[in-house]
């Protein structure tokens, strides 16, 4: 017994009827504007047409109105949107994958996949299909050709139809397990590429760890981001399965038009010390793996570290401001280093108080993370909130920490080992998940993700 079967049938027949009605109405009402529409359709994209249809449909719903008026409104909307879409689009193809140095969008949908096939050719087909779908989705277009066929499930799941590209980026990488015996690729595994060592205090939970493939989807709209991930998972069915997912958020542009440094859920600005992504040589030094680093297929790629860091929200909320600021080594309201006034004032770890105590506690987060300043990583973290910890009733919230670096061990592991041992912040956080992915170089038109590896 399928509980809602009959309701579903009813829905379907109503749908069919309304389709018919609408088609008839459109036939009747749209005739005078036909030429205009068909002339237009040669130059507009699927998505724009869909928008037009959406506008037309609305007009019909509202009682038919003048179709001419509806259409011209549609065209106005369309030309405005086209311009906006361009601004709102991050190209999928390029020398590097988008989503790494791209300014962080408002939302993330992250997923780790496990491959279920043992056939390398199927993995390649999946990557090709994902490439095509990703290029399509990041441009704000519906996937596939079967979106108007009543006999088939639509090839695009549709929840992003009519929405702008929302600066969607989709970034792919493969985990160390990708290079086990299954696909004959063991010899191409980057030297030393492996899961992260167990850091002091780690309380990793298998359900948030690892994965053959990591996919980071970021967008300025959560629905658009979810849509992209969902369609990738759908395309993968039979070849790869989801292993774990995590959604995350930051403040949006509406909430902070100035685009200042985002705050984490502990209330502190997070990312003040990030390297400047507009400096190409800095990115080359810190983020982009060079062909000479080996292996050749990783040239212009990057290594991603992902940590699911649960925050002990309840405990933090009853700690004093003084303790909180000592923990981070920054002032909460301004984000300035302790003893300084402005967020970007220079961190002075040597500064002492008149009593001879360090102004910035040496075990504070900023002091340890900064170290001697020689080693940095590109952080791209998002806050997450995943309801309650069923056992304790406490919030399961924290940080989906993501960083990109040219060398995982020289950069991320080096910094994290110091933090894991001494960071005052460890009293308030616990690392529950961990994964690393080797992110391919960018894809050129006609190529596909991972083509340098295959």
């Amino acid at each position, binding site marked *: *017994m*399928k*509980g809602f*079967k*009959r*309701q579903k*049938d*009813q829905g*379907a*027949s109503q749908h*069919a*009827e309304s*389709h*018919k009605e609408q088609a008839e109405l459109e036939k009747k009402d749209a005739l005078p504007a036909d030429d205009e529409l068909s002339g237009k359709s040669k130059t507009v994209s699927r998505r724009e047409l869909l928008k037009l249809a959406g506008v037309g449909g609305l007009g019909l719903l509202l009682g038919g109105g003048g179709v001419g008026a509806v259409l011209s409104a549609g065209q106005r909307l369309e030309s405005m949107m086209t311009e906006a879409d361009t601004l709102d689009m991050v190209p999928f193809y390029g020398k590097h994958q988008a989503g790494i140095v791209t300014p962080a969008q408002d939302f993330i949908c992250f997923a780790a996949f496990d491959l*279920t096939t043992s056939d390398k050719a199927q993995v390649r087909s999946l990557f090709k299909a994902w490439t095509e779908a990703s290029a399509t989705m990041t441009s704000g277009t519906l996937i596939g050709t*079967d979106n108007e*066929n*009543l*006999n*088939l*499930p639509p090839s695009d799941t549709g929840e992003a139809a009519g929405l702008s590209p929302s600066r969607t980026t989709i970034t792919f990488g493969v985990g160390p397990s990708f290079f086990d015996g299954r696909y004959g690729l063991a010899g191409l595994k980057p030297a030393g590429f492996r899961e992260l060592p167990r850091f002091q205090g780690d309380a990793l939970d298998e359900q948030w760890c690892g994965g053959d493939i990591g996919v980071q989807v970021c967008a300025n709209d959560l629905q658009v981001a979810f849509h992209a991930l969902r369609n990738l998972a*759908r395309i993968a*069915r*039979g*070849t790869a*399965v989801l292993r774990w997912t995590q959604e995350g958020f930051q403040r949006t542009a509406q909430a902070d038009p100035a685009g200042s440094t985002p705050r984490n859920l502990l209330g502190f600005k997070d990312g003040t010390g990030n390297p400047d992504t507009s400096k190409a040589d800095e990115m080359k030094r810190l983020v982009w793996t060079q062909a000479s680093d080996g292996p050749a297929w990783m040239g212009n790629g990057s290594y991603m570290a992902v940590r699911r860091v649960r925050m002990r929200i309840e405990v933090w909320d009853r700690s004093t401001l003084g303790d909180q600021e000592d923990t981070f080594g920054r002032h909460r309201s301004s984000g300035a280093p302790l003893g300084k006034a402005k967020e970007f004032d220079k961190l002075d770890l040597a500064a002492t108080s008149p009593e001879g105590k360090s102004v910035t506690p040496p075990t504070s987060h900023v002091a340890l993370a900064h170290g001697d300043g020689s080693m940095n990583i590109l952080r791209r973290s998002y806050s997450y909130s995943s309801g309650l910890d069923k056992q304790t009733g406490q919030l399961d919230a924290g940080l989906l920490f993501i960083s990109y670096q040219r060398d995982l061990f020289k950069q991320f592991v080096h910094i994290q080992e110091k933090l894991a041992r001494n960071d005052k912040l460890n009293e308030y956080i616990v690392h529950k998940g961990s994964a690393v992915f080797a992110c391919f170089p960018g894809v050129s038109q006609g190529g596909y993700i991972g083509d340098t590896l295959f």
Partner: protein
Amino acid sequence: MKLRYAVPAGVLVSSILFAGCGQTGTATQQPAAATKDAGAATQTTTPAASAPNFDQAVAAYRTYATQQCDTFVKKTEEFTNAVKAGDLDKAKALYAPARMYYERIEPIAEALGDLDPNIDARDGDVDAADWRGFHRIEKTLWEENSTKGLDEFADRLLSDAKLLRAKVETVNIDASLMVTGAVELLNEVSTSKVTGEEERYSHTDLYDFAANVEGAQKIYDILKTDLNQKDAALEKQIGERFAALQQELAPFKEGEGYVSYTKLKPEEIKKLSQNLDALAEPLSQMGKLLGV
């Protein structure tokens, strides 16, 4: 929809009760509603242009459905006899196997309005006063370890089964029903069998699981040649994924039947579910057959 079906089904039930066997009477009487519905659906879903001919496939499927129905009535009768005779162990043993004949052809039953809820509703699917059928009996057999008070439910189940058998002769089957029915069978598994909700008292979910998959596979087998001509890669992929799912299910076979759902580890359930999704996705593309 519920209202529309409520009347004819009620009429049919009473006619069959009064007329005793009544098979011919119902057979000529009922299809009107179903035909009307299916007709409307066909008009809007299939472009009139070059619709391929599925008469043979439809005939083959009707034969299969009728055979399943025949055995379903027979097995249901054995089951309800055991219930009425107060033979608890025998009733429990016959319960799940009898249901498999129904589960294989569920899209047919679902196309027949109230028959599906009457035969197969779970607690909460319908108003408590209307709840009858297999799961109502299942509850008493396993929860109370008893056959007491089940006589009337047993009689009604058998008459519902016979009604289904009568209706299957003339129910409107078309290629579209087959194509969507195959996916619906797997969706059934996906929503209630793989979660252990369907057989919440007897935990015989894997029988239903296997039967739903077999029913879907039968449809695929019938349409295979046509599908291969239309999209060989798709046909091959579906075939491979049926095989993969069967392989995943095989370790849970026990004698003629299947192990209790409670014996499955979470990891095994997850894997079954993922294999099912892997199959259902390409299977849902069988609509390409319908001349698109």
